[in-house]
């Protein structure tokens, strides 16, 4: 068993291996090569610091794990072991290798998420000293042209903003976002939209998102003034009124008030993640 930097492999090989690690997961999330490459770019994954466990004799990848690198922090992501690499210590070898890379880069903190219910993964990271920080929600909303008129009636003014303004708004969030929704992520994507919403009762908030042909993604809602659920509901209602045909996915957010607003416009929890961290 050998630990090799992931940049020694082609994107096709890594994608294929990654998909095999997830084939029997509850939430498999497979990727094609284009999606894999986009993931690496958008989330600042450093393939030179990412690890592949390789069986040279059998010429087989046994597992892989990736390390995102941003100023003063790292992020372990998409760590997985192929079925024939399990019960051989592959997972531990990957975590050890990724932590060594983070130390080499002098990153004081490593973050990661595990899918809620994936107890083996959670246990593995607890064993390495990671601590649970918070629960995150991944929510979806199928297309639904019916919007709650009462939520729209509460709105006094809507201002549409472009990508540059969206990025500025995102830089002024109150809570620390998860890695997927950090400012760096949004610097790496294009064509964000934003809606700034003001309610008659003084409530204010905004939403930023990417509107694809089929799907609304990268949805971030921030309530700046007023009742979180009420403002979030109104803000999201405006967005869905403008994008009636798209499916929507909001990833890795937290906060009971905002979540209630999401639910009021038809979002439901797809699955949960547990955010964990370790100080090095």
């Amino acid at each position, binding site marked *: 068993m050998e630990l090799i930097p992931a940049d020694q492999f082609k994107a096709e090989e890594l994608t294929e291996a990654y*998909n095999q690690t*997830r*084939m*029997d*997961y*509850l*939430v*498999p*999330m*497979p*990727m*094609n090569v*284009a*999606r894999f490459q986009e993931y690496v770019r958008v989330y600042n994954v450093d393939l030179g610091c990412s690890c592949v466990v390789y069986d040279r004799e059998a010429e087989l990848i046994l597992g892989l794990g990736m390390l995102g690198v941003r100023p003063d922090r790292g992020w372990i992501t998409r760590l997985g072991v192929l079925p024939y690499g399990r019960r051989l210590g592959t997972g531990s070898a990957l975590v050890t290798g990724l932590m060594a890379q983070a130390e080499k880069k002098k990153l004081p903190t490593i973050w990661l998420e595990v899918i809620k219910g994936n107890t083996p993964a959670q246990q593995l990271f607890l064993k390495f000293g990671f601590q649970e920080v918070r629960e995150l929600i991944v929510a*979806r909303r*199928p*297309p639904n042209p019916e919007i709650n008129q009462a939520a729209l009636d509460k709105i006094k003014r809507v201002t549409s903003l472009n990508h540059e303004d969206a990025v500025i708004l995102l830089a002024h969030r109150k809570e620390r976002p998860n890695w997927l929704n950090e400012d760096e992520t949004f610097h790496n994507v294009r064509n964000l939209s934003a809606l700034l919403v003001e309610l008659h009762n003084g409530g204010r908030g905004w939403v930023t998102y990417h509107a694809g042909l*089929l*799907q609304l993604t990268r949805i971030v809602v921030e309530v700046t003034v007023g009742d979180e659920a009420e403002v979030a509901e109104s803000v999201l209602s405006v967005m869905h009124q403008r994008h009636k*045909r*798209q*499916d929507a996915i909001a990833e890795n957010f937290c906060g009971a008030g905002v979540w209630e607003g999401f639910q009021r416009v038809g979002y*439901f929890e*797809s*699955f949960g993640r547990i955010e964990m961290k370790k100080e090095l």
Partner: protein
Amino acid sequence: MPTILQIEDNYANKLLVERVLEPYQYRLLHASDGETGVSLALEEKPDLILVDMGLPDVDGQTVVTLLRQIPDMQAIPIVAVTAWPPDKAMEMAERYGCDGCITKPIDIRAFPGQVAAYLEKRSA
């Protein structure tokens, strides 16, 4: 002969479905990603579509969303095939306009009956 379109990226799962349905008089089509699946559905107008929820290009929910917006596709039963826990799978299937869901790994004894029941719904 009824046509069944299976949209599934995992080769082993594809083979399993083919083998289990082999004794029956079905024409089986296969797509390994969402885009190919939607194209095949439009070209062939199958009698039943089995969609894996985790696909490598777009996820199964998005595929169902798109198909359900096309008038020709609205009467075709679409069944989600997923490893999600049964209650979550059912919720997802219902909300996205699927006609039902089958959990993975498929029960090879029950599967032909499940498929037949969905096909019957199509002809009803």
